[in-house]
């Protein structure tokens, strides 16, 4: 039995001590709904404050990770090289020795080595290689760790060991007649040809194709660089020959280069480690230099570029974070002031019982303090959770929210702001006397509010002025938010004035709902603050949504411009004709297009030259600002109808008559006839023999012309040993080839003409007709060239960025096209930008360009040319596989969607996402503030409604009045905020990077399309409607029995 049950008094240990925390906790529980709103609002404010540093950090990490992943592997990898120096001993004689030394250095730098994979070692030497039945070529004799796993064998085997065994690329083997089992002879490139003792015999064990030439395994590459001679005197080059045994790359008089390739593990590079990485690289480079080796890497440059993007992201963050933090503070201030005001009767009670000012203040602030302290960690976790969610949805894989010092600092700042708000917001209420606290008259606005508003207006003016001059100035960055604040202040003042007028009018007319609504709006200072909060929040969201929509459209435009078609595959091909044939085979429906590109230096920059299949251009190319009909029209201009080419297959036969008329001059017996034939490997002069009198058939086989060859023209030249100037007439009757008689169009005027640059002074008269009559006089040593005109004289071209000539507006100019020889161009269209190649380039028909180029040089294995296949959305999904089967090598695939995805993870897009998050957080705060004001005033409103009902006002009228009040209270700031936000966007967007850090402003269209903004508006309206519904529900219980004493 307890002592109290015996004595009736509490015994020892049964005393129930009333502590301050007991009162606080009971009060919190008593006002559970309002307490929850306070915690949620406090947590939202903390989360909003934490959001910026947390998201910025994650976004910067994402930019770093994506940037490193997108950079070419050879740019981010390290290559440690030891190149032989003439007359000196090599620093490293083998890959094994190199690995030991370098690993020793790296062991002393564990942080550096942690970022890189195990090295791929290689050794190679440049050689002159003599195929069994072809002229010598240059080739790289190479050893590489584990090479067989990265080669696809098309014949023979890839030996893993074996002295003197090599593998050769399939295409080089075909070109130079090398087969499995062949013996090839190699010697060092700089070893004299007559030093046969330095020659080495190697046996071909297999033929290979690279599994993936773009695989980072190949390091700096250059292994598959077969092509034309580098200079007129140099030998052509074939693909690298791989050895099984590293010792085989050491040749007499030719020591190999030894190198180790370290591939970067991009996921290990964190923001914090970038500085240390740079420092370690520099130190490592110095240490390697001591070993007489070289470090080659572009990683530092890549990191610098990425840092620039990340810095740009950081610079634009304050645009929304500063106003968001200020909004949080303002909402917290509002919160504390409202809560303290709500508890005025309890504060009066405490003072009535003799509480000192300090104790009464602690009593008044205790609940709010406890709730805010609870909200701080909740809000911090919520903010981090939001960042984590954003990271998983939007950022690079492997990026997470991090609890770091700036985040903790932001949480502490939010808590400090809340504590300051607690300290100062309710000060006026706490200082009032007992009787003032017991009264329910709302406080009047004081001059302080006017001064504060005036200050904000002045600041807004200053920031707008700063923004007009320099949108990147720190004060200018606050312009959108200040604009929204000023708009909110003006809206609240105007609403107050208007409400005061409407009250009188409604009273005169007896309109009860309007009277109630406007009476509340005209006298509640809290209402004015709510208007400002909602206006600023909606303004922030509208700014963010507008910026996002503009940027989204800009990203799509930039992606479209930079890719050029829905999909683009970069491929390897032997020559343009092979590319065209492969594309036709892979996609006979015509949804893909062969494209050949060359980058030509011009002036201080370069001009991108691009040949396309005009017939497919409209179907495939995505050209911003132009529809399909326009592109088709351009395509027809690029490919005016000239004449079909004259195909040559297997042999060529010319039926011609070297006319002899009495004693007149004749070409018979003194001249010879040649056919100029374009083959895949270049232009060929096919000798048809000496001209003889009378109608003869002149015939010769054309090597390598199974398909794809065409007749370019005929030449008439003096027979060797014949002197003097010749004259005579040649009548060409017909030309035939393996596929039959060729439609030569002799009767078309101008179809056959003399290449006057190559007549050597002879006079030639070409007369069209059923028979082509060529009348020559003064034929000297130089041949007379008769050209079949199958292309326009000047290649029609679409130009972007001005003609590459002295006069940028020149209609006709010459410039290298696919061949190095300058080509005549005639401008048919000028554009601001061309698809994929940008604002400085030339676009022309590929077929005509090839025809013209092949008159002067071969395009086979031309390293200047880059081959691409552009595909529309209707192209086969397995296009890459089909192209590979047709003989092309797939190097890389781009698409507009992939580019968009990449751009959407670039720094500007990530910054704009933060804007959106901040805008949503601001609206959540505003909704919370509206809920708070509803909760705080609920009891008073219930009593008011109860009293009004007792006075005879119908509930329906009370509801209509309340609804009208909230429609005005929230509808006006919604509209004003939208306008202010969009106006702020118009003002500031040109100063904010929207796509990439360097995207020129004139490429961006600042007119937003329908996108996120309507959704943002809808979400905001839904949130505010929810708040209104809650407000309505709190006063639904305003029934007359509330007036009875003691009813809560």
């Amino acid at each position, binding site marked *: 039995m307890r002592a109290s049950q015996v004595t009736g008094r509490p015994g020892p240990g049964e005393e129930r001590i009333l502590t301050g925390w007991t009162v606080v906790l009971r009060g919190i529980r*008593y006002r559970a709904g309002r307490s929850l709103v306070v915690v949620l609002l406090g947590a939202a404010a903390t989360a909003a404050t934490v959001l910026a540093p947390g998201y910025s950090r994650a976004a910067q990490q994402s930019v770093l990770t994506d940037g490193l992943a997108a950079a070419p592997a050879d740019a981010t990898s390290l290559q440690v090289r030891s190149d032989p120096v003439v007359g000196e001993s090599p620093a490293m004689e083998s890959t094994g020795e190199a690995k030991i030394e370098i690993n020793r250095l790296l062991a002393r730098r564990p942080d550096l080595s942690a970022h890189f994979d195990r090295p791929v070692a290689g050794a190679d030497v440049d050689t002159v290689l003599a195929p069994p039945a072809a002229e010598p070529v240059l080739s790289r004799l190479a050893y590489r760790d584990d090479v067989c796993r990265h080669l696809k064998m098309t014949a023979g085997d890839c030996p893993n060991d074996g002295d003197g065994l090599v593998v050769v690329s399939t295409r080089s083997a075909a070109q130079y007649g090398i087969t499995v089992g062949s013996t090839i002879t190699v010697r060092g490139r700089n070893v004299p040809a007559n030093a046969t003792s330095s020659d080495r015999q190697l046996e071909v064990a297999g033929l290979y194709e690279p599994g993936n030439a773009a695989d980072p395994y190949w390091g700096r590459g250059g292994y598959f660089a077969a092509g034309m001679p580098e200079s007129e005197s140099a030998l052509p080059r074939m693909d690298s020959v791989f050895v099984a045994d590293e010792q085989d790359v050491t040749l007499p008089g030719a020591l190999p280069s030894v190198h180790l390739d370290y591939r970067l593990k991009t996921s290990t590079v964190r923001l914090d480690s970038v500085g240390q990485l740079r420092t370690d690289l520099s130190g490592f480079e110095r240490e390697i230099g001591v070993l007489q080796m070289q470090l080659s890497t572009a990683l530092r440059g890549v990191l610098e570029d990425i840092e620039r993007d990340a810095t740009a992201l950081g610079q634009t963050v304050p645009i929304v974070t500063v106003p968001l933090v200020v909004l949080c503070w303002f909402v917290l201030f509002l919160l504390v002031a409202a809560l303290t005001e709500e508890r005025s*009767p309890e504060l009066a009670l405490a003072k*009535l019982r*003799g509480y000192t000012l300090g104790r009464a203040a602690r009593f008044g602030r205790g609940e709010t303090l406890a709730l805010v302290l609870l909200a701080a960690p909740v809000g911090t976790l919520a903010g981090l959770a939001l960042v984590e969610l954003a990271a998983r949805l939007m950022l690079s894989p492997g990026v997470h929210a991090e609890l770091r010092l700036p985040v903790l600092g932001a949480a502490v700042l939010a808590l400090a702001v809340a504590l300051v708000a607690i300290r100062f917001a309710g000060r006026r209420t706490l200082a009032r006397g007992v009787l003032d606290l017991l009264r329910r008259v709302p406080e009047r606005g004081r001059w302080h509010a006017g001064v504060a508003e005036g200050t904000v207006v002045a600041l807004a003016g200053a920031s707008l002025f700063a923004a007009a001059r320099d949108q990147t100035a720190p004060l200018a960055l606050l312009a959108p938010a200040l604009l929204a604040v000023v708009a909110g202040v003006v809206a609240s003042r105007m609403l107050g004035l208007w409400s005061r007028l409407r009250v009188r009018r409604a009273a005169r007319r007896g309109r009860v709902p309007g009277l109630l609504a406007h009476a509340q709006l005209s006298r509640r200072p809290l209402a004015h603050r709510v208007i400002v909060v909602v206006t600023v929040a909606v303004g922030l969201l509208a700014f963010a949504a507008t910026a996002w929509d503009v940027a989204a459209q800009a990203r799509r435009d930039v992606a479209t411009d930079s890719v050029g078609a829905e999909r683009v595959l970069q491929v390897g091909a032997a020559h343009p004709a092979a590319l065209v044939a492969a594309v036709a085979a892979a996609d006979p429906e015509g949804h893909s297009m062969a494209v050949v590109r060359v980058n030509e230096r011009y002036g201080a920059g370069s001009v991108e030259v691009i040949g396309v299949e005009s017939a497919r251009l409209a179907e495939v190319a995505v050209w911003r600002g132009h529809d399909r009909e326009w592109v088709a029209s351009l395509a027809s201009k690029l490919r005016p109808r000239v004449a079909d080419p004259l195909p040559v297959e297997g042999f060529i036969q010319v039926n011609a008559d070297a006319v002899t008329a009495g004693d007149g001059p004749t070409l018979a017996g003194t001249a010879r006839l040649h056919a100029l034939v374009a083959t895949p490997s270049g232009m060929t002069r096919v000798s048809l023999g000496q001209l003889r009198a009378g109608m003869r058939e002149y015939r010769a086989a054309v090597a390598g012309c199974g398909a794809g060859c065409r007749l370019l023209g005929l030449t008439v030249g003096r027979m060797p040993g014949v002197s003097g100037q010749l004259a005579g007439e040649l009548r060409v009757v017909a030309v035939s080839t393996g596929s039959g008689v060729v439609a030569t169009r002799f009767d078309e005027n101008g179809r056959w003409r003399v290449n006057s640059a190559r007549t050597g002074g002879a006079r030639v008269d070409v007369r069209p007709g059923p028979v082509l009559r060529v009348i020559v006089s003064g034929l000297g040593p130089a041949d007379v060239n008769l050209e079949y005109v199958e292309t326009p004289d000047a290649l029609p071209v679409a130009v972007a960025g001005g003609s590459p000539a002295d006069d940028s507006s020149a209609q006709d100019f010459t410039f290298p096209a696919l061949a190095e020889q300058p080509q005549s161009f005639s401008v048919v269209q000028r554009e601001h930008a061309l698809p994929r190649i940008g604002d400085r380039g030339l676009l022309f028909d590929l077929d005509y360009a090839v025809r013209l180029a092949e008159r002067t040089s071969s395009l086979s294995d031309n390293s200047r040319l880059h081959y691409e296949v552009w595909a529309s959305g209707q192209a086969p999904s397995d296009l890459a596989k089909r192209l590979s089967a047709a003989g092309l090598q797939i190097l890389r695939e781009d698409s507009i969607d992939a580019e968009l995805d990449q751009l959407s993870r670039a720094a500007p897009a990530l910054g704009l996402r933060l804007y959106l998050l901040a805008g949503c957080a601001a609206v959540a705060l505003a909704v919370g503030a509206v809920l708070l004001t509803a909760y705080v005033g609920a009891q008073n409103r219930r009593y008011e409604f109860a009293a009004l009902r007792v006075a005879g006002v119908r509930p329906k009228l009370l509801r209509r009045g309340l609804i009208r009040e909230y429609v005005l209270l929230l509808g006006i700031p919604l509209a004003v905020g939208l306008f202010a936000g969009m106006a702020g966007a118009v003002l500031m967007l040109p100063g904010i990077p929207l796509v990439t850090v360097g995207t020129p402003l004139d490429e961006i269209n600042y007119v937003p399309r329908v996108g996120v903004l309507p959704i943002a508006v809808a979400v905001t309206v839904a949130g505010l409607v929810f708040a209104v519904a809650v407000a309505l529900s709190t006063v639904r219980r305003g029934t007359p029995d509330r007036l009875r*004493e*003691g009813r809560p």
Partner: protein
Amino acid sequence: MTTLYSGSASVDGRRAIGSAAGGSSSENTGDAIAVSCRGLVYIYRLEGYDVVALSGVDLDISAGESIALLGPSGSGKSTLMSVMAGLLRPSAGRLIVGDYDVAKASAAELQQMRASTVGVVLQGTGRNLLPYLTAEQNVRFAQRGGTVDRKRNVPHPRDVLATVGLSSRGRMRMRPHQLTPGERQRLALAVALANKPGIVLADEPTSQLDTRARDEVVAALEAVRRTGTTVVVVTHDPAVGSQMGRTITIRDGRVGAEGRRGEDFAVVGRDGSIHLPSDVLEAFVPGTLVRVWLEPDGSARMVPAADMPVAGQPPVITGEASLW
């Protein structure tokens, strides 16, 4: 016996004023205290105009008395109580509550007065109680306002609640909304007694109560008085006033009448004015010119000007008043 003062004359010589003047802060041990008002004036300063709520109140309340302040709405009763509680500072005049000169006391001294000397029951129980604390906790809450030393001497909440008849455990653990209206009002009274004040000021303690609850509250007030605490009740209910030892009618900001032992007396003010009983006022309507003179037997005679007597002869009395 309490007397009214005219100037500084004392009728029976008993001092009813506390010893100190000028805002003394000596501890009140809980013994009943007296209150003395001299020419007390309070003016409400509103926007554009002033309202004189108290226009010179002269009043002495003895320690341990129970007083009812009666009067119509707007007569100044609640204002007088607020001034006595230190919630309003007098615009003029003098007010001594126990050892405190309210007109001269600082805010801290007034706070201390409320913590130790004066207990206040506001009109409406909701304003006196925290709805989320139990009855016992409400009393303890009020006791937290005192100083540490003072807290050692305050009665146990159970004892306080016992004074007003709420000492059962069940009642002590109940929150206000769980109590009946009468119990709530008694709890409000107990909270006012929490710090063992010398005087309890109660504003309309029986408003909105039924008869039974009213009687409970009145009985509780009497119990409080029996503990030696001075009780001052503001009420407009004459039935409640009749239960108090003494009633004082406030009219137009001044003490107009007083009731003792069931009898009503008009009170002569410092300036010699007097509030006539209502039946006399019907005969001598405001504005009536009267002559007043002292009779040899000590009574005063008041004759309207229309009934002027012949010189040397007693006047014909029609509608006259005799003032004792």
